[in-house]
C-alpha cells in the first residue's frame, strides 16, 4: 500500500505546490487608469498614457511583474472633463477594492474633484506635476500625492535659473508672468510674488482667457512693458499661440521660459521655426538615450505589445513623463510589498504607505535604467512632493536639450505656503492632521 500511495502522495504534493505557485502567479495589481486620448488635449494624453502603460507592460515582460505580481489595468476616457473624470472613478473604484495602483488623472480639475472621494475610498491619488499642491502636507492629505514637484516649486526653480543667468542679482529686473486664466495658471502667483519680494524684481501679471488661441493684446502689452524675461504658464493651444505671438512682436524666445505643461514636442513642433530657442521647465528629460526608454522599445514593442499607435512618439517628453509616473507607481508598490508581503497584490491603503515612503535614490534610478530621467524622490508623511527639482530645457529646432542640472526651488520660501494652505483646508473640513512624528 505504502508503495502505491507514495507516488500518489508525491504527485498530489507536486500538484498542490503547482496550484499554490499558480495562485501566487495569478496575483494581480490593478491600475484604474482615468485618462484621455481624445478631445482638446487628447494628443498629450496619448503620449503620456502610452508611456505609462508601456512601462507596466515592460515590468510584466521583463521581470514577470513586481515579485511575480502582474500589473493589470483598465482605461476610462475622461476627455479632460471633470464630470467624466468622476464618472470614470466611480466606474473603476469597485475593481480597485482588492488591489489598487495609484490613480493619475492628469488633470488638476479632476484631481480636485477626486481628492476627498479617493481619500474616503482609500485609493491613492497621484498628481505628478499638477493638482492640489498643498497636498504636499501629507498630515492633512494622506491619500493625495503631488509627487516630484509642484507648480510653486517649479516657479521658484525658474526664478533661480534666471537669477543664475543674471549673475545672482535680479534686483531692478522686470519679469512678466503670462498665464492661463484658470486654477492651473493662477497656482504659482503667490510663489512668484514671494520670489519678487525676496529678489526685488518687478513682477507683471498678464492673464490669458481660455483657450488662449488669441493673445494679440497680451503680447503688445508685453512689448510695451519691455520685460527681461517672460515666465509662461500655458496649456494646449495657448502654448503655440504664445510662441508665435512672441515672434510676431519680436520678443526673444530664449528669454521666455514655460512651465512643464508648455514644454513638450506637441507645443514646439506645431509652432515651427518660431519655437527655436524657447525654454521650459521639465521634471523628466526626453530622448531614447535613457536606458529604460530604449529597453521598453526593444522589449515591449519587440513583443508587439506596445501601447502607442505611433511609435515615433517613443522618447518624447510626454511619453517619458508617462514612464516616470509609472516608475513612481511601481516603486510604491514594490515598497509596499517590502512591508506587507512580497508577491502579494497591495490594497490602496498599502500602496499609499508605499507612496509615502518612497526613496528613489540615484543608485536605484541607475538600477532601473532611469538615470537622469527624473530627479531623486524621497517622500515622507509631511512631504508628499519628495523632490521639488526641475531641469530647464531648450528647443533647438528639432529636439529638447537640457540646459541646466536639476534645480531645486526655494523650499524654505515655498513649503510654508503649502503648510498654511493645508492648515486652512483642515480647519474648513474639520480634519485633525496626522502626527507625522508618529508615522516615522
Amino acid at each position: 500500500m505504502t508503495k502505491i500511495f507514495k507516488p500518489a502522495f508525491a504527485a498530489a504534493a507536486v500538484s498542490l505546490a503547482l496550484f499554490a505557485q499558480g495562485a501566487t502567479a495569478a496575483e494581480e495589481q490593478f491600475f484604474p487608469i482615468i485618462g484621455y486620448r481624445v478631445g482638446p488635449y487628447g494628443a498629450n494624453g496619448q503620449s503620456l498614457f502610452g508611456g505609462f502603460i508601456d512601462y507596466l507592460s515592460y515590468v510584466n515582460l521583463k521581470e514577470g511583474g513586481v515579485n511575480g505580481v502582474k500589473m493589470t489595468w483598465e482605461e476610462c476616457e475622461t476627455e479632460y472633463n471633470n464630470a467624466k473624470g468622476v464618472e470614470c472613478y466611480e466606474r473603476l473604484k469597485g475593481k480597485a477594492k482588492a488591489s489598487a495602483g495609484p490613480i493619475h488623472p492628469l488633470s488638476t480639475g479632476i484631481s480636485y474633484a477626486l481628492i476627498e472621494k479617493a481619500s474616503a475610498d482609500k485609493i491613492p491619488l497621484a498628481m505628478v506635476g499638477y493638482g492640489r499642491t498643498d497636498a504636499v502636507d501629507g498630515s492633512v492629505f494622506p491619500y493625495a500625492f503631488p509627487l516630484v514637484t509642484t507648480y510653486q516649486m517649479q516657479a521658484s526653480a525658474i526664478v533661480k535659473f534666471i537669477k543664475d543667468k543674471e549673475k545672482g542679482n535680479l534686483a531692478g529686473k522686470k519679469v512678466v508672468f503670462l498665464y492661463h486664466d484658470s486654477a492651473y495658471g493662477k497656482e504659482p502667483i503667490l510663489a512668484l510674488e514671494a520670489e519678487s519680494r525676496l529678489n526685488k524684481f518687478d513682477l507683471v501679471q498678464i492673464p490669458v482667457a481660455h483657450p488662449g488661441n488669441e493673445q494679440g493684446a497680451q503680447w503688445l502689452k508685453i512689448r510695451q512693458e519691455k520685460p527681461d524675461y517672460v515666465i509662461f504658464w500655458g496649456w494646449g493651444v495657448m502654448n503655440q499661440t504664445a510662441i508665435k505671438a512672441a515672434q510676431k512682436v519680436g520678443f526673444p524666445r530664449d528669454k521666455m521660459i514655460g512651465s512643464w505643461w508648455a514644454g513638450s514636442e506637441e507645443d514646439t513642433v506645431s509652432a515651427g521655426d518660431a519655437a527655436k530657442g524657447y525654454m521650459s521647465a521639465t521634471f523628466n528629460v526626453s530622448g531614447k538615450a535613457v536606458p529604460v526608454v530604449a529597453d521598453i522599445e526593444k522589449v515591449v514593442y519587440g513583443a508587439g505589445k506596445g501601447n502607442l499607435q505611433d511609435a515615433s512618439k517613443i522618447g518624447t517628453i510626454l511619453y517619458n513623463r508617462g514612464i516616470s509616473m509609472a516608475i513612481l507607481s511601481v516603486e510604491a508598490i514594490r515598497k509596499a510589498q517590502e512591508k506587507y508581503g512580497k508577491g502579494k497584490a497591495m490594497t490602496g491603503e498599502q500602496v499609499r504607505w508605499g507612496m509615502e515612503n518612497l526613496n528613489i535614490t540615484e543608485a536605484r534610478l541607475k538600477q532601473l535604467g532611469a538615470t537622469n530621467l527624473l530627479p531623486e524622490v524621497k517622500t515622507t508623511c509631511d512631504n508628499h512632493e519628495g523632490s521639488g527639482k526641475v531641469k530647464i530645457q531648450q528647443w533647438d529646432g528639432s529636439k529638447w536639450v537640457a540646459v541646466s542640472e536639476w534645480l531645486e526651488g526655494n523650499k524654505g520660501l515655498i513649503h510654508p505656503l503649502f503648510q498654511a494652505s493645508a492648515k486652512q483646508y483642515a480647519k474648513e473640513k474639520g480634519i485633525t492632521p496626522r502626527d507625522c512624528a508618529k508615522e516615522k
Partner: protein
Amino acid sequence: MNFFFEVLIGGLLSGVMYALVALGFVLIFKASGVFNFAQGAMVYLAALSVVGCMEHGAPLWLAIILAFIIMTLFGIATEKFVLRKLVNQPPITLFMATIGLAFFIEGLAPMVFGSEPRALEIGIVDEPIEAILESANMVISKFDLVASGVAAVLVTVLALFFQYTRVGRALRAVADDHQAALSIGIPLQHIWAIVWGVAGFVALVAGMMWGARNGVQFALTFTALKALPVLILGGFTSVPGAIVGGLIIGASEKLAEIYIPPVMQSAFGGNFGGIEGWFPYVLALLFLLVRPEGLFGEKHIDRV
C-alpha cells in the same frame, strides 16, 4: 497714442481672422436658415485634411485641392445623409442635427488624420513688417495683412456670387422659404449640397489661416467661439456684416483687454485681466438691445 493705434490695428487685423470663420456660418444660414453649429469642426477638418495630405507626400497646392475635394464630398454627404430627411422641419431640428454633426467630425477627423498638433507652413511668416516697425515703431504682422487680403477677396467673390448668379439667387430663395422655393422648381437638394460645399471651402480658407497661425490641432474647433459675437453684431445673413462685425469685435476686445483691467484694478484691487473671452459677448448683447437683427441683418417682419 502710438500704442493705442498699434492695439487698434492689431485688433482690426485679428477681427478679420474671426470674420473668416463667421463667413461660413453666414453662408449656411443665408442659404438654408440653419445655424451650423459644426462650422468650427469643419474648420478643423479642413485644416487637418491639408496637413494630412501633406504628410502623405502631397505638395501644398495639391493638398489644398484634395482638401477642397474632401470638404465638397463632405458637403454633399451632409446634404444626402443628414439634411435631406429634414426638409421643412423646424429650424431647431436642423440646428440639433448640426450639433450631432460637430461631434461626429470632432471624433472622426483625428481618427483619420491623427490628433497631434502640427505646423502648417503656407510660406508667410508671422513677423512684424520691418519698415513700419522702424519708421513708426508699430508691430503690424505680415501674416495678418495677407489674411486681410484673403478675406477681402473672399467677401467680394461671395457677395457677387449671391447677388449676381442664378445659383446665388436660388440660395437666397431657399433661405426665405423651403416650400416656396421647391414649388417654383428650385432643386433644394442641389442647392444645399452647393452651399455646404461653399461653406466647406470657406472653412478651408479659415482653417489654413488659423492653422498656419496657431498650429493645426483640435483647438481650431474653438475658433467658432470667436465667430459667434461677430455674427450677433454683423447679422446672420450678411456677408459684409461678418467682416464689419469682425473688425468691431477684434478692435474692441483688444482695446478692452488693454485699457479696462488697469481701471478696474485701481478701483477694486485684484487682477481683472483675461476679459477677451467674454467681453465680445457682452458687446454683442448690448448691440442686440439696440438692433436685434444685427448691424446688417435683414429685418424680420411677420404679417398678422
